[in-house]
């Protein structure tokens, strides 16, 4: 005899539709225009920065760079919902979230410019650095959350990961651990539909990525990741719950990678332009601007001023980056261990001897 022993469903949340119309009720924070303006400004800065970074790469002043174009609402929604004392374990393109937390634009440039100092955030001292090995960061967030839980702290950790990343075992292991130990951690799957050239349907047969939470016995929800209001509201709720002992959650932010995977990629090889064109119609900035205009909180003048301000900030960051000399060769040995083992002293001397910069950085 068959009986049903468990039932689950996955919800999808959208508040600001692509045309900038509000669907349903606005969450509390979104009733204050200045809050929304703040989010819009952050998204805009992120996009202006992104354009500049790509230019830097194209002109040989930056290494490979992973664009965040199109992800601004998902990233800013997530970052703005976090408290300073929380800990973020990003992958490699969530600048929008990181800027909210105090990471500097020059840090991003340093990192993609081939300099470890980009990971030495002056801002969120406890945040994890960018994480290239896909999905491994989820375990770090879970581990940090475990530390918070053991110490009885009212903080939480956030890990973000891509749609492709959800195929890695480490992702599920982290989710499962978080569930088993009811850790204060929120996992955000930024589903931008592509993992380099691999479309979502080749990645998994799961209808939603939010339902991956069911495997771990934790709540999962799907959000319009181009809707900064839904994103922020969902994250705030999940984080608040996590900080207060309510356990982990998985948030799937449905968005789209409007750019190439990185500057080393050429998406026209594998992706139809029509799909990208369609995606531009639902991108995050315009709908936010439309809404702000519709409530009388934004206009062309403000937009121009904002763009000018963003350009200025970005230029400052670029200048700071370009003015930074490379580290001395000895930097390879610094911080390998708290104290360099005797056995490595020789090697350090060799490196100094063969310094190709001749000691000039």
């Amino acid at each position, binding site marked *: 005899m068959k009986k049903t022993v468990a039932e689950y469903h996955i919800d999808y949340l959208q508040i600001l539709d692509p045309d900038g119309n509000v669907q349903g009720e606005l969450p509390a924070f979104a009733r204050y225009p200045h809050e929304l303006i703040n989010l819009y400004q952050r998204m805009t800065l992120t996009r202006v920065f992104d354009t500049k970074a790509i230019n830097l790469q194209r002109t040989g002043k930056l*290494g*490979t760079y992973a664009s965040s174009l199109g992800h601004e609402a998902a990233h800013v929604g997530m970052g703005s919902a976090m408290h300073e004392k929380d800990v973020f374990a990003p992958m490699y393109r969530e600048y929008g979230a990181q800027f909210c937390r105090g990471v500097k634009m020059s840090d991003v440039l340093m*990192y*993609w*410019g*081939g*300099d*470890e100092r980009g990971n030495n955030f002056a801002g969120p001292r406890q945040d994890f650095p*960018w994480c*290239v*090995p*896909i999905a491994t960061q989820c375990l770090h967030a879970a581990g940090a959350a475990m530390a918070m839980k053991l110490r009885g702290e009212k903080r939480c950790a956030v890990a973000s990961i891509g749609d*492709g*990343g959800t*195929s*890695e*075992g*480490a992702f599920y292991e982290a989710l499962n651990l978080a569930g088993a130990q009811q850790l204060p951690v929120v996992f955000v799957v930024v589903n931008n539909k592509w*993992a*380099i*050239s*691999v479309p979502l349907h*080749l*990645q*998994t047969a799961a209808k939603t990525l939010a339902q991956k939470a069911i495997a771990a016995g934790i709540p999962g929800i799907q959000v319009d990741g181009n809707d900064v209001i839904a994103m922020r509201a969902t994250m705030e709720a999940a984080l608040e719950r996590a900080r207060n002992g309510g356990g982990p959650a998985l948030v799937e932010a449905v968005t789209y990678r409007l750019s190439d995977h990185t500057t*080393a*990629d050429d998406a026209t*090889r*594998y992706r139809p332009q029509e799909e990208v064109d369609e995606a531009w119609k639902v991108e995050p900035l315009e709908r936010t601007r439309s809404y702000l205009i519709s409530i009388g909180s934004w206009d062309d003048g403000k937009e121009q001023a904002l763009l000018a301000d963003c350009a200025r900030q970005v230029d400052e960051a670029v200048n700071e980056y370009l003015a930074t000399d*490379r*580290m001395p*060769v000895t*930097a*390879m*040995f610094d911080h*390998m261990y708290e104290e360099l083992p005797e*056995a*490595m002293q020789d*090697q*350090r001397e*060799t*490196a100094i001897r*063969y*310094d*190709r*910069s001749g000691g000039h950085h």
Partner: protein
Amino acid sequence: MPGIALIEGVTMALAHELSHDESVVVLGEDVGVNGGVFRATAGLQQRFGKERVMDTPLAEGMIAGMSVGMAAQGMRPVAEMQFMGFIYPAVDQMISHAGRLRHRTRGRLSCPMVLRAPYGGGIHAPEHHSESTEALFAHIPGVRVVIPSSPARAYGLLLAAIRDPDPVVFLEPKRIYRLVKQEVEDDGVALPLDVCYILREGDDVTVVTWGAMTHETLKAASELESDGINCEVIDLATISPLDIETILESVEKTGRLVIVHEAARTCGVGAEIAAQVAEQALYDLEAPIQRVTGYDTVMPLFRLEMEYLPSVARIKDAVKVTLEE
């Protein structure tokens, strides 16, 4: 016949085997429509279809594990790891299964798979994209490790690796993927595994190296020639099992040995070569062995990567040091 680059040698070998052996399947992340992030599999899916050239979900342990399963069924999966820095989730399957399936079933099942990965530094790539950890795989029983250093060897050794009845980790030095072109005939003739290739004869010093470092080493050797020093340059090619005979013969002639690799020094493959020579040819050695290697540090981000990688200057000095004795 126009010349082809090393990476094209890889593509040509894959295409050849896909054409001639229907048990061969190419799989990995982005190997399909995109033809691989380096284009090593460019055009293959278009030519052989989605079932023979397959984009997998993003999970290296999974790719290795499914390859073991396919190989046990008599297929010949050729799996790509996008970069060597992402190969580590596959270590478990390689050491716990691929390298021992034949042994533990007393030959009932076997594992004719190839795990390809671009490796090494020097192309200003992002973090984790410039790794050289061939030594980890050289320590795994039952697994061959092969590294080509020219278009012809890329073609011939990859053919051999795919046809080999046992698992092979095939590491491609991405820094020289497109460095030189060479005429290579698509004749399906494999090169022998388990042997070194002598790239240059000489009788003053033996220099053993592999991968991208063969080029730095050859450059050093030709510069040293003007100083009247004749280096014998040996490309290890098969990292494991080691063809120590060729090296011993050379050292017997030269009395001097320099080993060059870009991997970290401690417990690198250079140590094994040095150890075997010290064990088996101690009395041939007229000077201490020199190892010119990457440091025991993390491969730094690219602003410093050229400081990490052995340079022509370091190689030349090491050769000279062995001659000073």
